């Protein structure tokens, strides 16, 4: 198509095809007649029938074409950075966090805080941990810096709640102990690359 045709804005002369339709009613008698015709034709029920048929197929024949959103969610990319999750060790069920404080230090919006103490087993225990989600910008640095893959960004993107505090405590983010088996290893931001073994020199061990 040459450029001239585009520039030809004389609409009336173009070769449009007109779709045939009935002549417009002219008199009020004709107008009344058309209204009555359309009313009594039953076309509405054709549309309703389509809906009914699809509903029947979806409910009873298992041919559903949409996701049941609040109950069902589409899978989301592991790189998506939503509300944090605290993972547990799969073997012992103990939480992975060692309380090193790196997430607290790296956080650019300064929204992570933790209190730690020396516990009875001579280990560092995280006695208190919070993330202030009013300030968190979900940058993902905390997950990236975590040496234990203990804090990760989960897929939980519905961040509306009556209280921001609803998300922010350690226990809220921690994998529930009965859901330990469903805990998935995090493949996204900050995880070890699949070929990590090839990239490091191993420290010899005398065992």
């Amino acid at each position, binding site marked *: 198509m040459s450029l001239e045709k585009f520039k030809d804005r004389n609409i009336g002369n173009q070769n449009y095809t007109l779709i045939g339709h009935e002549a417009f009613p002219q008199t009020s008698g004709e107008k009344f007649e058309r209204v009555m015709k359309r009313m009594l034709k039953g076309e509405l029920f054709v549309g309703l029938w389509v809906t009914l048929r699809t509903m029947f197929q979806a409910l009873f024949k298992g041919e559903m074409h949409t996701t049941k959103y609040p109950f069902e969610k589409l899978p989301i990319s592991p790189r998506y950075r939503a509300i944090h999750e605290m993972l547990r060790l799969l073997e012992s069920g103990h939480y992975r966090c*060692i309380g090193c*404080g790196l997430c607290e230090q790296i956080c650019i919006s300064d929204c992570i805080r933790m209190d730690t103490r020396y516990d009875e087993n001579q*280990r*560092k225990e995280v006695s208190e941990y919070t993330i202030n989600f009013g300030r968190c910008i979900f940058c993902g640095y905390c997950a990236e810096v975590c040496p234990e893959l203990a804090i990760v960004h989960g897929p939980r993107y519905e961040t509306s709640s009556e209280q921001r505090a609803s998300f922010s405590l350690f226990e809220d983010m921690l994998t529930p102990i009965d859901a330990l088996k469903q805990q998935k290893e995090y493949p996204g931001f900050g995880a070890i690359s699949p070929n990590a073994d090839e990239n490091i*020199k191993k420290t010899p061990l005398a065992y």
Partner: protein
Amino acid sequence: MSNKEITVKIDGKECKSVEGEYILNVARANDIFIPAICYLTRCSPTLACRICLVEADGKRVYACNAKVKDGMEVTVTNEEILQERRAIMEVYDVNHPLQCGVCDQSGECELQNYTLELAVDSQSYAIPDTIRQNKNWSDVLHYDAGLCIVCERCVTVCKDMIGDSAIKTGPRGGEALPKEAKDTMPKDAYAMWNKLQKSIIVPSNGTDFTNCSDCGECTAVCPVGALVSRDFVYKSNAWELKRIPATCAHCSSGCQIYYETKHTSISDPTEKIYRVTNEWNYVSLCGAGRFGYDFENRVQGKDEEAFALALKAFNTAQSIKFNSAITNEEALMLQRLKEKLGVKLINHDAKAFKDFLASYSKASGKGLYGGDLKEVMKSDFVISVGASLRNDNPNARYAFNHVQKMNKGAGLYFHPVGDTLVSTFGKSVEIFTHQVGQEELALYLILDLFANKERLDDETKEYLASFHRHEKRIVKEKIMEEVSQSVTDKATGETKEVIKKVPKTIEKEIEVQINGLVEMLGGNDAFYENFEKMKSKKESFSLIIGEDLYYHPHSRNLSRLVALIEEVCDMTLVMIPPRTNSLGVAMICDLDEEESGYVIGYNEHGHFRLGSRGFSKLDIPALNQQEGTFTNINKRVVPTNAALDYHGYELNDILNALGIGMRQAIDFTPQLGRIEGFKSENFDDLPNGYTNAGEELRGYALEVVETNKEEIKVVKFDESIVINEGEIAYRCNPQRQFNDFTDRSSQINEEFGAYVSPNKAKELGEEIEVIFDQEQSFKLKVIVDDRMQGDIIAIPDYKSYQNVYGVFGRDRYKKVTIKKV
């Protein structure tokens, strides 16, 4: 160490130094970096890490123990040395991973730093690890053996600086090194690994607990996170803490410290002090300084009602009673109050010290004593009179110990209360456990032993000579005598004459010179012989005197004797001020003798109390919430900063209400310049730190002014003041208690009670009532101090509301009656 100036070249840089200095110290002073893990600036080289290997004039030496020579050329790094160092670092990293998530060193780790500095990027050695248990050595010390790299810095500092020698290396029980290692590894790395694999740090008394003064200096010097104070373990990462340079508020040493603060917890955002750290290469703290930091006074806000009452009290008051745990600025404010309101200033600890200083100045012609503790540390013969070294000033004790350990020095310790620790400082330490009141004799003995006799006047010379006498004594001597015996050989039946040497004791009469002074002071017989050995080859002498002399019936005569000794014996003289800022208060305030009328207690007992402890009527900030300066034992005006906020009233507000205040308390700092010796410097211009060469850049040094010297004669010893019978109470604090502030600190748990030697405790039982002659009495728990000896009981004065100073008055020793309860 001679003071001959020499020049050496380190990595091409010309460095000036003195003969006998170690290469490492010269390099550090000239900003040249030589890696070294185990060396501590003021202590003896340990040679544990071997990483400070350098090449001096083509020979490999260790920079920490090789002394510089004139014209020496030192190469810090070459390829071979670097290989050796890398191997050493690799060995240190065996079984000590560097991605350590939870360590209290948190990035301030020298192991990590040196591993990175030397670019160690792989590990070539391995050995099975041994199980090493975490231990709590005492109330404050926590040892994580798993992190320990056995650099022995803790052992070294405990021996050479602190003097407790409470820890040593012990067996680790690790596996032997791989056989091929010896041939394949660099030599020094192998030797270091061999030692490392065999040892670990343990308490030296053979138990699981250290018996020490809990100073925590070992935790300060630890390059890794192996030694940490128990209170701090896993509490906070170092990088979160804000460091506030300050001066320790507890004793007269005025050590430089850093308060490290952070918010209290997630739910409580108020700042809290988490720990105290120090420049451990240049200053050593005591337990009070390191662990007594949480004595702040938290107030909600300005209590206007109390303030109005306080103003009213100041307007009616006739005396203000205070102690010397205050800043120079506060002292100056109190002095201004005196000038404005005409009140009396009462200060028990500074008054006696001020009088002693005044009388000393008259006799010596100097406004202040001549030396400081730094000079004492450089001397090689140190004498202590009238100070309970362990308790009065920990730094004086460290100096005494340091002289023995580092300068191959000798020491004399005169004190009525026996001390088992001081004698362990060195072989050439003589302890005189004399009777109470014999302090003058002790000073006369020093005169006799050290004075240049030509400079003494005839009277004193005669007096000293009168103590000497010759005595004939029968001495038993062992000699070898030759005895001939006839022996029959059984095999051959021959009889032989055999000459055998048999030891025999004979009695011999000899004439000995006896010094009556030594006898009277309870010195042992061998002293005179030992003393010649002690004194030989010694060049510089120093004298530390303490509180016993200021609180002495004859303190005036003692001060003259001290002045005389300083003059005729060429001694460095240091006086231990009784409390934190007694020297400052003594110089700034005109103090009065007796309190009268309505008394305002400023951190003290009184009708109206202002104080930084909860029970006061008007709260004032504690010393970690105030800016200001202290005058310390080293005659320095040193600044301290506020570590924590304070929202209430302070003394300056009262002065402002009376129309004589300044905008801020530190605006008084330049005003100190009007007092003799002080300078007009703004607070913000005062530095507070050390240079790499260890030079103290803190505040400014007081100027020692010359005064009119009066001809004053010393008086002979008067025997009537000696207390040698009955029970004696001694006003003396336990090791880590100094004042109300230490009392308030949660980690200092020495109780208020009667401190006694183990033997005395058996006699006394669990609780006693000590009755003084004015019918005042204390009911006290008996607490054993296993480093004390003898029958004297020590009663602490750190709790101001117990008014122990008031009970003792102008004495430090009192005759008392003791009742068992």
